[in-house]
């Protein structure tokens, strides 16, 4: 009986197609990746079943975590305009470098009196800078109120648009603090705003 010869096949596979797909996916992920914004408020947002996504432009956000208020605006030019307006209001003059630095700061939570030293801190030491939160109270002339007001003015002047307001609060934040932000907004006739939440997942234990 003749032995059946098994044909020996080469183990090398043509990897061109696999390589193509891999790099295609890689390109996709690189292009869609967004740098994570370092949020100093460390607010853990509560879950909700809401599905509406958050807009990523024309937004101002008041974050609150550990009773400290943080503020951010998406537009860079609005940021620097707001800083100028706040400077004249509180009698602080900022150098062009400081304004430049501020326009690149995504989120901040520093009262006006220490804002200058915050902007003068070199970037590598910013992590150690203790942000004490923006001052806010129920009067008509607190810093948070003015930040929101000046950035709305700046947005109107620069882009002729209205800024969308959103509140990003930590789940454990007590209601009076939230109420403080809401009353600040109500005083400038802002009655419609977003609450930032995360999509509901299984409760963490």
């Amino acid at each position, binding site marked *: 009986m003749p032995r059946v010869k098994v044909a020996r096949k080469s183990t090398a596979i043509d*990897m061109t197609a696999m390589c193509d797909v891999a790099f295609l996916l*890689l390109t996709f992920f690189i292009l869609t*990746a967004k740098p994570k914004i370092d949020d100093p408020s460390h607010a853990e947002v509560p879950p909700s079943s809401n599905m509406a996504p958050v807009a990523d432009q024309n937004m101002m956000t008041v974050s609150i975590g550990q009773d400290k208020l943080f503020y951010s605006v998406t537009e860079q030019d609005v940021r620097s305009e707001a800083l100028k307006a706040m400077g004249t209001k509180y009698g602080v003059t900022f150098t062009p470098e400081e304004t430049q630095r501020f326009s690149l700061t995504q989120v901040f939570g520093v009262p006006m009196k220490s804002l200058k030293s915050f902007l003068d801190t070199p970037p590598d030491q910013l992590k150690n800078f203790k942000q004490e939160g923006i001052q806010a109270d129920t009067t008509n002339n607190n810093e948070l109120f003015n930040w929101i007001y000046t950035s709305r003015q700046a947005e109107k002047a620069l882009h002729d648009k209205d800024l969308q307001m959103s509140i990003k609060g930590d789940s*454990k934040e007590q209601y009076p603090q*939230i109420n403080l932000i809401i009353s600040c907004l109500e005083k400038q006739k802002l009655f419609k705003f977003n609450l930032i*939440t995360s999509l509901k997942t299984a409760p963490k234990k």
Partner: protein
Amino acid sequence: MAELDTSGGGKHKGGKIRSKKASTRVDLTAMVDLAFLLITFFMYTTTLNKPKAMDLVMPDNSVKTNSLPVAASRSMTIVLGSKNKIEWYMGEPGKTPPTVDGYGKEGIRKALIENAAKVAATHAAPDNTMEVLIHPSDKSNYQNLVAILDEMSITNIHIYAIVKILPMEVDDLKKNGYY
């Protein structure tokens, strides 16, 4: 895996010296490895779950509008206490003792659906929607507020407002130990 074409050349016995034909095949294994490693990295680092937003509209308190009176029998008041507890009652404060409830499917959602159905059944057609007043106490937290607003959208209640808490409700929360 790595292949190098070693054929050709041969032993140069008398014949012409032929230049070696280099293979055009490149070993892609390492490249694919690297590509997949990077893909994995980017997949894990990208945030696919973007934060979601919930709309909240507060009543305009700057203009005095002549608001329509709301029948007390159609209004439900939800008082947010501490320790993730809720007290709710129908109608006017003090008349009916509040019910203590929890959050979620078995708690307040059930109560909301039941009460809305009851209001719809006992009232005439155009004015048979339930209105909800949310009274967050100073001891409730942001998660409670978001949760209750979420329940509003889940149970399809369109008329609701966040209102300041009444002193007697605070007293009642204190009595029950949720303040």
